[in-house]
C-alpha cells in the first residue's frame, strides 16, 4: 500500500482529504465533499467556466493545456451526446500520483467529473483506469455506487429536476499508448488503442463521435477544490500562468521518495534536497528526469528552475506528469538511456512508422553500445533517428521517445564516447540478457 508522506513546505489543496478515510462517502461529505458540485448546479455553466479559467489550472497529465479553455471549446449545442472522460490510465514511468488520488480521494474524481459535465452540458462521464489498478477500480466502483445510492448520480441529482449525470467506470488491459487521449477513446470504444489524427479535436469529435472533454484524473480532482476556494484564490497558490498546486511524485535516489503537493513554480532543487530529503546515502546528484520518462534530462547543475510548465520549457525540458526521477552518481547514463528507449519501443503501438521503426532502431543501437560493441557513429545515428521521429507521428509517443533520447546523447555525449572507449561511468544494474532491454 502506498505510504503517505508530508512535508512542511507542502501547500495542501488536493491532498487535504488524504489519510482521512475520504473514500467513504460520509467522511467525504463531512470534509466539504459534494458542496462544489451543488454550487456548480446553482451557479450554472458560465460561472464554472469563468472560475476554471481564472484558476489558471493546466492539464496535469503532462501537456499543460489550460483546462477552462479546453472546456470552452466544446460546442454549446450538439446533435450528438457530449461526454466527459477521465484519464486514469497513468502509465508514464515515474508517475504514481493518480494512484494515490484514486486510493485516498475517489469522490473528488467523481465530483470533478460531474462539474466538468455541468460545464459542457454532458450527462455521461467515464472514469478510465489502467488495468493494473484493479484494487483502485474497486474503490472507485464502490464510490460511484455510494454516490448513486445518495442520489448524487443518476436522474435529478441532489433533487434538481432535469439535472442528470451518470458515471461509468472502465478498465484498460495494459497499454501505455492508451494514455494518449484519442487512443484512450479507441480503447473505450472496444478497439486497439491506436491514436486518431487531429483535427478534429476531441472537444468537437471525440468518444462515439460526440464532443468530449478528456482530462487527467488529477486535473479533474482539482476542480471541486477550485470551485470552493474560487478561481483567483487557486491561481494565487501557483506561479504566473500556472495556477495552483500539483502532486509531484519524487522517486529514485532520494532519501524520502513520495507524492508531495507543491505549489506550481516551486524550486526543483528544494523539491529534491528539502522536501524529498536529498540524495540517498549521501551520494552526489548526477541528473534529474523532471516530469516522467519522456522529459529531457536535466544535469545536476540545471536544477535551479521552477516547477511549472513555462519555466521547465524555458529550461529545455518539460514539467510533464510531475514524476521527478532523481539519479545519483552511480547511474550509467548509457544504461539509463537504453532502459528508457526500451520502454517506448515496447509501448509503441506500431501505427506510425517513424515511432515504430525509430524506437526499435534506437533501442538496437543503444543495446549494442551498452553490450560493448558500439562505435562513435552510433551516437550520431541515435541522434539522427530521434531527430527524424520528432513531430512525425499521429500522437506524442514518438516525441516522448525521441526527446529524452536526444537529451541523454546531447547532454552526456562525453559519457557515451567514454563508454565506447571502454571508460564506463556508473555501476551497471542490468544486462542485455534482461528481456525488456534485450533484442527479443
Amino acid at each position, binding site marked *: *500500500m*502506498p*505510504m503517505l508522506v508530508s512535508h512542511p513546505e507542502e501547500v495542501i489543496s488536493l491532498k487535504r482529504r488524504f489519510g482521512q478515510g475520504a473514500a467513504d462517502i460520509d467522511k467525504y461529505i463531512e470534509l466539504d465533499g459534494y458542496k462544489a458540485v451543488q454550487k456548480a448546479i446553482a451557479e450554472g455553466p458560465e460561472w464554472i467556466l469563468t472560475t476554471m479559467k481564472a484558476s489558471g489550472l493546466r492539464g496535469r497529465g503532462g501537456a499543460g493545456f489550460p483546462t477552462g479553455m479546453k472546456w470552452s471549446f466544446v460546442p454549446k449545442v450538439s446533435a450528438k*451526446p457530449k461526454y466527459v472522460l477521465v484519464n486514469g490510465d*497513468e*502509465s*508514464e*514511468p*515515474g*508517475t*504514481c500520483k493518480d*494512484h494515490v488520488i484514486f486510493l485516498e480521494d475517489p469522490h473528488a474524481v467523481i465530483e470533478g467529473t460531474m462539474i466538468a459535465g455541468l460545464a459542457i452540458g454532458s450527462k*455521461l462521464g467515464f472514469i478510465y483506469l*489502467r*488495468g*493494473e*489498478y*484493479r*484494487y483502485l477500480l*474497486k474503490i472507485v466502483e464502490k464510490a460511484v455506487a455510494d454516490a448513486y445510492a445518495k442520489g448524487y448520480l443518476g436522474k435529478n441529482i441532489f433533487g434538481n429536476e432535469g439535472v442528470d449525470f451518470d458515471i461509468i467506470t*472502465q*478498465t*484498460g*488491459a*495494459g*497499454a*501505455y499508448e492508451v494514455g494518449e487521449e484519442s487512443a484512450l477513446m479507441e*480503447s*473505450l*470504444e*472496444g*478497439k*486497439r*488503442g491506436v491514436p486518431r489524427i487531429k483535427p478534429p479535436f476531441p472537444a468537437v469529435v471525440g468518444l*462515439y463521435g460526440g464532443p468530449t472533454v478528456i482530462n487527467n484524473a488529477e486535473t479533474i480532482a482539482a476542480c471541486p477544490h477550485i470551485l470552493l476556494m474560487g478561481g483567483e484564490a487557486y491561481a494565487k497558490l501557483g506561479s504566473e500562468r500556472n495556477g495552483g498546486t500539483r502532486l509531484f*511524485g519524487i*522517486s*529514485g*535516489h532520494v532519501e524520502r*521518495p*513520495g*507524492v508531495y503537493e507543491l505549489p506550481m513554480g516551486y524550486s526543483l532543487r528544494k523539491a529534491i534536497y528539502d522536501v524529498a530529503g536529498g540524495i540517498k546515502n549521501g551520494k552526489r546528484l548526477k541528473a534529474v*528526469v523532471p516530469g516522467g*520518462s519522456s522529459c529531457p534530462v536535466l544535469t545536476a547543475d540545471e536544477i535551479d528552475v521552477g516547477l511549472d510548465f513555462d519555466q521547465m520549457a524555458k529550461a529545455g525540458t518539460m514539467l510533464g506528469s510531475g*514524476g521527478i*526521477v*532523481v539519479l545519483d552518481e552511480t*547511474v550509467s547514463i548509457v544504461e*539509463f538511456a537504453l*532502459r*528508457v528507449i526500451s*520502454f517506448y519501443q*515496447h*509501448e509503441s*503501438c506500431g501505427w506510425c512508422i517513424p515511432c515504430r521503426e525509430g524506437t526499435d532502431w534506437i533501442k538496437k543501437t543503444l543495446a549494442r553500445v551498452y553490450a560493448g560493441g558500439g562505435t562513435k557513429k552510433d551516437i550520431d545515428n541515435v541522434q539522427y533517428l530521434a531527430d527524424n521521429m520528432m513531430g512525425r507521428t499521429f500522437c506524442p509517443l514518438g516525441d516522448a521517445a525521441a526527446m529524452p533520447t536526444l537529451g541523454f546523447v546531447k547532454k552526456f555525449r562525453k559519457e557515451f564516447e567514454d563508454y565506447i572507449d571502454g571508460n564506463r561511468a556508473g555501476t551497471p*544494474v*542490468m544486462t542485455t540478457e*534482461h*528481456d*525488456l532491454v534485450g533484442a527479443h
Partner: protein
Amino acid sequence: MATIANSMFTAETAARFDSLATIYPVKRSALVPMLLYAQDELGYVSEAAIQEIAQRLDLFDLDVRNVLSYYSMLRTKPAGKYNVQVCTNISCMLRGGYEILDHCKQKLGIGHKQVTPDGKFSLEEVECIGACCWAPAMQVNYDFHDDLTTIKVDAILQDYAEGRGKDVR
C-alpha cells in the same frame, strides 16, 4: 445478443457480462473489460471465451482477437496461479528492481513469461506499474507489493505458495 444461454462462465461473471453489454452507449465498449474479466476467471483468454464474447457483443471472433493481441495484460496461454510481475522501469531500476527480478528468477527457477512446473507461479518483467514512489515494486496478480527487498520477496512468495497471499479480483 446481450445475454446468452449456456455461458461458459460462472453465474457471477455471466451476470457481469450481461450487464456490461447494456451499460454503454455502444456495446462494443464492453470488450476490453470483458476480456480481462474472462481472463481473471480462466487464467487466460481461451478460444471458447473469445467465441462467447464475440457472440455477446455481435462481433466476429477476429475482431475480438485483433483487440486481444494489443493489450499486454491479456494472454492466450495460461499463466501461473500467481503471476509475479516485477517492474524494472526507471524508478524501480534505480532502487533495485533488477535485483528483485533476478532474485525471483532464481527463487522460482523460471524466466520471463515462464510458469513453474506445478503451475503455481509465473514470472514477468513488466513496465512501469505506477508504484514509483514505493519502489522497487511488483504485483502478484492484481496486488501491489512495495518497497521490496529480497528478504521481503521471499516472505511474499512463501505466503502465496502456502495460500496465504492477498489476491484481489
